[in-house]
């Protein structure tokens, strides 16, 4: 029964899709989430609590004999908060601390869509000949095992090979 519950929870976890569009020394990362978002997250958004989804992206260089070398890490934080007085959702997207986009919307679905389909993130990619990999996941909030050990409520890590720039 426990295994079924775990499998069910895994099946219900949102899935992250990453689409990469390479450019010289740059990489456009389009992330999108599908599936049900965590109930606590949705409840908080509906009730006016500030919520966010952090899209963590890590760029690795593939090495044959050693572990993959991490070339860089980026965070795309998409925040949403509903004004409970006016019902307006305030939205923002920040890439590595810099505002990428912001906006307002009146509907919950629009707000959720905005969060699950944030603007494309343009990140720098070092010029290398080796194959590069982008690993990313979406993090929603922090849970605690045994009350004190923090763990992230997040999607699975998704790995994508960085295509060659045209």
């Amino acid at each position: 029964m426990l295994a079924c519950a775990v499998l069910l929870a895994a099946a219900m976890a949102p899935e992250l899709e990453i689409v990469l569009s390479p450019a010289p020394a740059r990489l456009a990362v389009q992330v999108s989430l599908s599936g049900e978002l965590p109930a606590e997250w949705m409840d908080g958004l509906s009730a006016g609590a500030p919520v966010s989804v952090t899209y963590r992206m890590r760029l690795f260089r593939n090495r044959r004999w050693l572990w993959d070398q991490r070339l860089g890490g980026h965070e795309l934080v998409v925040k949403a908060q509903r004004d409970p007085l006016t019902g307006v959702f305030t939205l923002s997207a920040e890439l590595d601390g810099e505002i990428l986009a912001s906006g307002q919307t009146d509907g919950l679905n629009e707000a959720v869509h905005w969060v699950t389909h944030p603007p494309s993130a343009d990140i720098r990619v070092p010029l290398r000949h080796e194959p590069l990999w982008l690993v990313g996941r979406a993090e929603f909030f922090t849970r605690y095992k045994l009350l004190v050990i923090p763990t992230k409520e997040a999607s699975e890590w998704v790995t994508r090979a960085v295509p060659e720039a045209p």
Partner: protein
Amino acid sequence: MTDWRRRWQRYRRQNRFLISVYLVLALLAAAGFALFSRLRGLPSEELTNRLLFFLLWWFDLTLIAVLLFILVRNSVKLLLERHQGILGSRFRTKLLLSYLVLILLPTALLSVLAAALLSQASASWFTAPVEEMSRTGTELAAEVRESTERDAQRAAATIARELAPLGSGEARTARLEQLHTLLGNDFTGLSVAGRPVVELADPRERRVQRLPPLELGQSRPTGVRSERSGGTVIVRAWQRLPDGAVVVVGDAVPDRQAELQRRLATTGAEYERLKLERPTMTATALLSFGALALLVAFAAMWLGLYLSRTFTAPLLALVATTNRVAAGETLEEVPIPAEDEVGLLVGSFNAMVRRLRSQEKELRATVGRLDAVLGAVRTGVLTLDAERHGAQGNPAAATLLGEPRLAVESVPLDDLAAAGLGRLVDVIRGARGLQRTSLTIHRGGTARALEVAVVPLGEEQRRTGWVVALEDMTQLVRAQRQAAWSEVARQIAHQIKNPLTPIRLAAERMARHVERGSGDLAEVVPQGCRSIVEHVLSMQEMVDAFSRYARLPATSRRPTRLAELVGQVVGLYDGVRPGIAVRCEDRLGEREVLLDPEQIRQVLSNLIDNAVEASSDGGEVVVTVRPEGAEVVVEIADQGRGLDVVDPDLLFQPFYSTKGRGSGIGLAVVQRIVTDHGGTVRLEPNQPRGARAVVRLPGGDA
């Protein structure tokens, strides 16, 4: 400056570096974490929470690491010390374990209990009723807003419906004014091609009119939007007319209502935010409590180690000192100062050490004096242990026994026996208590007469040693022998002189008669010859007695029932002289004594002879045999004339007689036999009259 202050300063100096390193590391870690979080664009309030959380984790982890380090280090150290048998390790182990159990167990229980209480309290904050109330409040605020929006939309639709047939112109404006007044809107406007044409506003609610124009989408014919403005919420709805004009209706929510709505909505949102933050808050509280508990445990453990060190240090110093003293090192005081009961113990020990030092000094002085005395005296002294394995002596003993090693070291008795001192060794080993004896040893071709006294030390059941005193009697014996020979010569001369005079007189008389040619030669010569022969016979008898005394055979002792022997001898005197009774009193019974029965029979005969001879008619001679301690006593008492000499010991000299007849050798023989048996004999007055001979023989087991 007090002692505590000095200790604290020393402690601070010792630990300043470690504390500084720890604080610097904590600050660097906190700063690094803050910088890292800042780079990630965290808002300030979240940054504060994260930083607090990080610091709590830092303190908890470092305290756990320090505690584990101290535990492991001290456990390993104590185990090694116990394995090596270092003094005090067992005590410290027990003390540390006691502290750990006494402190860590309650702390762990309290931590678990606190965690449970915190979790329960946290759960009680977010109960279903509270959540329902919060959600209902939020929904109520939203419902009120939506109601206002619906009203505004309805008003805009109504106005649009009324204005649509009128076309553009003053009629439309007039109707608009009528409807504005009729519907009681706070704001009513009409825009054409995105530009406001008419704006009607309630003079009491100019806030609506001051809002920027709505950005009306082309595709949506109607809509509504709520906006915050000046502490209230303004709802603006629009309705597009068929000709493209747009009617805008605006209503401001009353301030009081808006405030209540805001509070409801804000509370609900805050509740949801807290609910999302609840695990973090619980974890933070638990980590805070855990840090406190770890601090308490750390302090308790440090205190336990400090106290165990404080308790054991003076005790260990005390034990180490006593061990050194027990191992034979010099007495020394314990240097560690202590102020409690242990201090009293250390003080008592130091006082005892001082007293022992003083006594030791006196003892050394006494021993030195004793050594000087023993080195100076001519009496040889041997000391032996309780088991009499070996003997050590003073220089006189070494000289007397011809064993120089005795003055330097302990010499085994077997070595002494092998060196020709077997008789002395037998005397020493055979002594059961105080024993005196005389013996002659032959060393280096010379004979040495020794008076030996073996003295036990301690009680009979718990002997602590033996002391043997050796008195060189060689010169004294020689002198006594010379004196005895002088006395013998004098007595012999006296005894010989007595018959010589009558012999000389008889010879001179016969010579005178011969010279004168006396006619009575036939009478004188035989008379003179008889006198000469008679006195020569007397001299012959004296010489025979002397010969008997000199040829007294060696003693051959064997177990003998002395009482029976005495009875036999007494029986021989039954009726030997009329009017004299000789009887025996036996108080010894069947006890056997080691003696030569023939020689003792001679002793008894001589003494009873004297007693019978000294008794007058009607007298009684009583021979008593009885035990007395370790001796057997034989008393021969008569009721005769008693002793008529001042010194009774003279009677034991050979050829000394008060009877005017006999050889005077009987009592000398008695004394010699008794002495050869290790006993004594003496003469003393009998009560009420007469004399009494007392013979004491060693009455040990046969």
